[in-house]
């Protein structure tokens, strides 16, 4: 039987790793849930942002938080540009999968052309910093990531709930024609939301640059688990996405601590199936 320290430590690192799942799931969940667009290029955009953070940091010595100020608005603009294509060609849910898959591949190739397929690591002295609480170690960067993800998820949740734009978006997601007849300019709002989704990818990318070693093919690393997270957290629900991310992160980590680590992916997808079948109210 594993010790309490081991279990506690596994829980902490799992929840924190889940923060990344949640952060990546956020933008995906919004565009899927509210615009019916499944944006596979979300991950590629996050990696583009990560590479840009790396580039600015390594070659121009720009601190990541400053580069984020540049990259996140740029990603917002990319989101708008991408939405222009969705809009122009009246892309539906299925076609969006195909088109954004192509985007992702093109971005992957572009990234590889510029940065090569070789590993890129943005070395910072804080990337492996941690502090101690009782017997447990808390990694600083992952903690910040979780706080940022928490603020974003909470803020987005409030925005959807409390602002006119947020409510109009939800109304339009349910029935775009009726919402339009009540004056909701769904098109404009959809641009805004696509931009936001891409901006969130940009924020995730900043953290990916700091936490992970980059290679173009890594774009696909998070795809499966983040899709599970989006579905468990319910489409279009930002708090759900974050919560589901942490739930999956924690269960994977506990499975790795208690069972064989190889069970981790089985655990997350079993969790997905259980939750889909059980469909609890509170989730």
């Amino acid at each position, binding site marked *: 039987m594993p010790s309490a320290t081991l279990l506690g430590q596994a829980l902490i690192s799992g929840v924190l790793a889940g923060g990344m799942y949640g952060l990546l799931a956020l933008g995906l969940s919004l565009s899927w849930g509210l615009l019916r667009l499944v944006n596979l290029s979300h991950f590629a955009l996050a990696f583009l942002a990560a590479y840009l953070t790396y580039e600015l940091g390594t070659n121009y010595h720009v601190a990541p938080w400053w580069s984020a100020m540049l990259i996140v608005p740029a990603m917002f603009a990319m989101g708008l540009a991408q939405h222009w294509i969705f809009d122009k060609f009246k892309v539906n849910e299925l076609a969006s999968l195909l088109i954004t898959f192509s985007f992702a591949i093109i971005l992957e190739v572009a990234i590889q052309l510029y940065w090569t397929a070789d590993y890129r690591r943005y070395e910072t002295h804080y990337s492996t910093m941690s502090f101690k609480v009782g017997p447990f170690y808390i990694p600083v960067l992952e903690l910040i990531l979780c706080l940022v993800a928490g603020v974003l998820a909470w803020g987005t949740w409030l925005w959807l*709930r409390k602002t*006119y734009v947020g*409510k*109009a978006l*939800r*109304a339009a997601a*349910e*029935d775009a*024609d*009726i*919402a*339009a*007849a*009540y*004056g*909701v*300019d*769904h098109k404009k709002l959809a641009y805004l939301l696509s931009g936001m989704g891409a901006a969130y990818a940009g924020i995730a990318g900043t953290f990916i640059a700091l936490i992970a070693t980059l290679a173009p093919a890594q774009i696909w690393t998070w795809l499966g688990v983040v899709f599970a997270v989006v579905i468990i957290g319910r489409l279009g629900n930002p708090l759900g996405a974050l919560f589901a991310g942490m739930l999956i992160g924690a269960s994977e980590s506990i499975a790795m601590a208690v069972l064989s680590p190889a069970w981790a992916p089985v655990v997350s997808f079993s969790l997905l199936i259980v939750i889909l079948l059980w469909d609890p109210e509170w989730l």
Partner: protein
Amino acid sequence: MADLLAIEGLSAGYGRAVVLSDVSLRLAEGEALAVLGRNGVGKTTLIDSIVGVTRRISGSILLGGRDIAALPPEQRAALGVGWVPQERNIFRSLSVEENITAVARPGPWSLQRVFDFFPRLKERRHQAGSSLSGGEQQMLAIGRALATNPRLLLLDEPTEGLAPIIVEELLRVLTALFRDEGLTGIIVEQQARKILPITHRALILERGQVVHAGASGELLADAAMLERHLGVTAG
């Protein structure tokens, strides 16, 4: 006084089928118009054409002198077309209050005023739209349309499918809106005897065409006309 709404030679349909042909009507500011007719004659098609959710074939729709016939629905709504659809179409995933505030526009009909008008909605303000009964949904649909502060309110069979006691309540609401508040609007109804006392004028549609137009009071008194076009027996 200038007409708020002037429809001239409107034809509309679905696919190749022409459902409305050459309909014209006028509505002055402060006037309420009843649109009567049997099932399937094109009443909903007429309303939907004003809202902008059907395919118009020809004709013009002037709202306050401006032709809105080519505008998309969201721009018509912004210009003051308010709609209570036949299917009600409540946003089920939004709460009662959110259904109203998601589409509200500034004007005399604030959320507070809508709630004063429909106390039942206020009681259920935090419930999901999907949890409402039929009558409550109809009230929410009306409240939601009012909150857009429309210049022209279109109601498509508001009493359809409701229990008699709820129908009575709704008719009181409509009386208050069109008689006391002086709203301008069109009410589509099958129950002619119930709605004619509320409206100023009435028209009857048959197979997509206007077969009668006149004052509500006169039509109410003309039992033969009602019998002929609507199958309403005297009494």
